[in-house]
């Protein structure tokens, strides 16, 4: 679209679009939409986002929601309820009417939180995924100007020789995906790694670029801009076998680490008490939205198009349940739970 519209008009178009959205006008291209069960939905859908406006989860849900709203012919409203690492939104989700008009966006913390006993969501009992359209593996990055090491091998050598504990800037601490993966890498490599949780992405990047920590843990898409600018170097892909695009970076098996890593993911959830035909409809809509050009653009923009696949409700529940068991075992091994 950008190529065909002259620059001055693009801004005006944006302002006009904004005005239209203010009036609550939804694009009603519903010709290919799945059939609505008993007129559902007849009004706007509310999605609770347990993180702040503008964050990764917020952006993901708004990108997916825009496509779903287009297909369903109703608006999506977003309620950002941030706090306690995504837990503050949970009580409201649990007491919301189970009519399919209130949904929850959340990520892998639903699984790690259940495994670590941090919240009262139980997958399959009071929460089920409608769809899991985005997953990604993680990587460890170093500062490209760090003169102590320049790849995983030299990093391990350095850490073993000096006995120094290397700090890793990650988004979450104990009882999280990040903490468990780093601990398993630390144990498997025979080096001391310690996670320093930085909830704010800016602080996290700042910590590695300022060399206040030795490593940075994130997904390839998050680290890519800094890698392309020559500021960070990826040294390890935390995946059993890296996709071709990352074949130049060692993965877990390349460096002799045998544990099975877990993926980061973002999903749309509902209560299992929502009538089955409505959940089926939402899943079909989500599937169609995930095929849309808008969503694919989003995946590409966030560099998650290489690793994401679509999980519907049933496969998603299985996927999340498998992860739950993996985390339980890991947390037990790490002494986080009994």
């Amino acid at each position, binding site marked *: *679209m950008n190529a065909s*519209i002259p*620059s*001055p008009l*693009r*801004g*005006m*178009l*944006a*302002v006009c*679009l*904004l005005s239209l*959205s203010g009036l609550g006008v939804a694009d009603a291209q519903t010709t290919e939409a799945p059939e609505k069960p008993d007129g559902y939905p007849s009004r706007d859908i509310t999605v609770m986002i347990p993180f*702040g*406006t*503008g*964050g990764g989860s*917020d*952006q993901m849900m*708004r*990108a997916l929601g*825009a496509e779903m709203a287009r297909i369903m012919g109703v608006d999506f409203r977003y*309620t*950002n*309820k941030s*706090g*306690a*690492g995504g*837990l*503050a939104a*949970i*009580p409201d989700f649990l007491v919301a009417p189970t009519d399919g008009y209130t949904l929850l966006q959340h990520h892998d913390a639903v699984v790690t939180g259940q495994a670590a006993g*941090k*919240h009262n969501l139980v997958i399959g009992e009071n929460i089920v995924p409608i769809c899991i359209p985005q997953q990604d593996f993680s990587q460890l990055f170093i500062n490209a100007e760090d003169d102590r090491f320049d790849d995983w091998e030299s990093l391990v050598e350095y850490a073993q020789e000096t006995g120094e*504990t290397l*700090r890793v800037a990650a988004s*979450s*601490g*104990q009882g999280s995906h990040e903490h468990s993966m780093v601990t398993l890498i630390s144990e498997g490599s025979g080096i001391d790694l*310690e996670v*320093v949780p*930085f909830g*704010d*992405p*800016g*602080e996290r*990047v*700042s*910590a590695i*670029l*300022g*060399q*206040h920590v030795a490593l940075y843990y994130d997904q390839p898409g998050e680290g890519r*801009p*800094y890698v*392309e*600018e020559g*500021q960070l170097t990826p040294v390890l892909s935390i995946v059993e076998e890296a996709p071709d695009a990352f074949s130049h970076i060692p993965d877990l098996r390349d460096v002799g680490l045998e544990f099975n890593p877990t993926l980061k993911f973002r999903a749309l959830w509902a209560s299992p008490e929502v009538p089955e035909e409505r959940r089926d409809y939402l899943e079909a809509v989500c599937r169609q939205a995930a095929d849309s050009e808008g969503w694919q653009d989003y995946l590409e*923009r*966030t560099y998650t198009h290489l690793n994401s696949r679509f999980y519907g409700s049933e496969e998603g529940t299985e996927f999340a349940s498998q992860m739950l068991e993996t985390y339980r075992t890991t947390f037990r091994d790490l002494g986080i739970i009994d």
Partner: protein
Amino acid sequence: MSDLITGLSGVLLDPATLGLFVFALIGGIVFGSIPGISGVTLAAILLPFTAGMSTTQAVMTFAVLYVSSVYGGAITAILFNIPGSPNNAPACFDGYPMTLNGQSGKAIGAAVTASALGGTVSALVMMLATESIAGWAVRAFGPPEIFALVVFGLTVAGAVGAQTLSHGWLSVCLGLLLATIGTSPAGNVPRFNMGSTYLMGGIEFVAIILGVFAVSEVLKQGQHIAEGIRVPPKIGIDFPSFAEFWALKLAVFRSIIIGFFSGILPGIGATLAAFLGYNEAVRWSRNPKKFGTGTLEGVVAPEVANNAATGAAMVPLLALGIPGGALTAMMLAAFQMHGLDPGPALFMTSRELVWTVFVAMLLANMSIMLLGYLETKTIVHLLRIPFPLLAPIILMLGIIGAYAVRNLMLDVWVMLIAGIAAFVLRGRGYSMAGVVLGVILGQIGEGAFVKAMPIMNYELTGFLYRPVALVLLLGAVLSVAISAFQRVRRARKEAGRDGLPADASA
């Protein structure tokens, strides 16, 4: 010079870009002045539409929005004791007392000029030195330095607005205690949450400030009406004179430096800048007791600082690709939507974009000055609304603001409880500014300390090996020592004066 011309033509010669500039300027002021709803809210609404804009237009719109929204919240803080956002809370400390003293126009004029000045200087520094400052700031300021900066700021917090120093420190300690409610940043252990999942996220800062400022003020004014002693504030439309501003030149200079460096640090930004700006004004004043009673310096210092943080926040974003907060994170997303990544190469590959953004921010700050001057003459007339009508409006705005931050009723209850508690505490000489300072500095300080300890191998002596942290901590110790020394000397003088007649009669 050619860069400047490129930037100016980028903003002014393209009608669509100019239209977006005006939209963002006014939108930011409006959204920034409504409590609980900030420029971030408008930016989130706008984000999907930036796909239809050029990269320059998208990034410029967010940059202008950022500048104007930081300013917008000062107006309601000064007129009604309702800060539009946390970074405008310090404007309540002296701005609202100025309104009560019949100097509302002067207070708003000071806020406007201070905001424009802080933002303009910050934008100019950003234009001249972004590339060189960014790398240095990120290396020099890690969590240990941020913790030291907070300690330095705290050492003066007890002196703000309380009846006595002990009342001041008790107020700060109450704030620090409130900041511990939620989840401990060390190990994510729930702390003082009384079993509530909602409280695991901590007490929302916006709810506290709306309670201690807006609700408690409504109660206080209501009490005055009941006692028949309330005098409605006089409408003042005088703009501060040049001489009055010139007298504050050192405070302005200090706040620009504080604001700029706070703005560069990710996760800190305009809120800490405003509080530190106010604190340092108190620390360096010859008459600290005047703060909290309605002094121009108390309005100027925080408003210069929070706006100085806006240009500074662009420094790490544009030069290193590091977003400092929610709004700059959305700017990063806008960049990425257009297949562009901010970072060192941006200054070479997209120079026109960078300079259009720089110039737009500069123009936004100048426009604030003009709009603000007009506001001084008009908006103060809102004070003519009789208090019995105004009070429910203030309470309603407060409730909306408290609820809107997280869409939680809990925050409304927190606001009401904080308001009642503040009403009682204010009557007994405690400082609400101190409580708020304690909450904000406590939250930031503890978070920084928890990150600093592993970085320093869990050894407190680690601070000694980090020059910036060491200087800040020594400054804090020196500040406390000087304050204690002055108090002892004053006490001895007073004791000497009291003893003189007795000695003379002996």
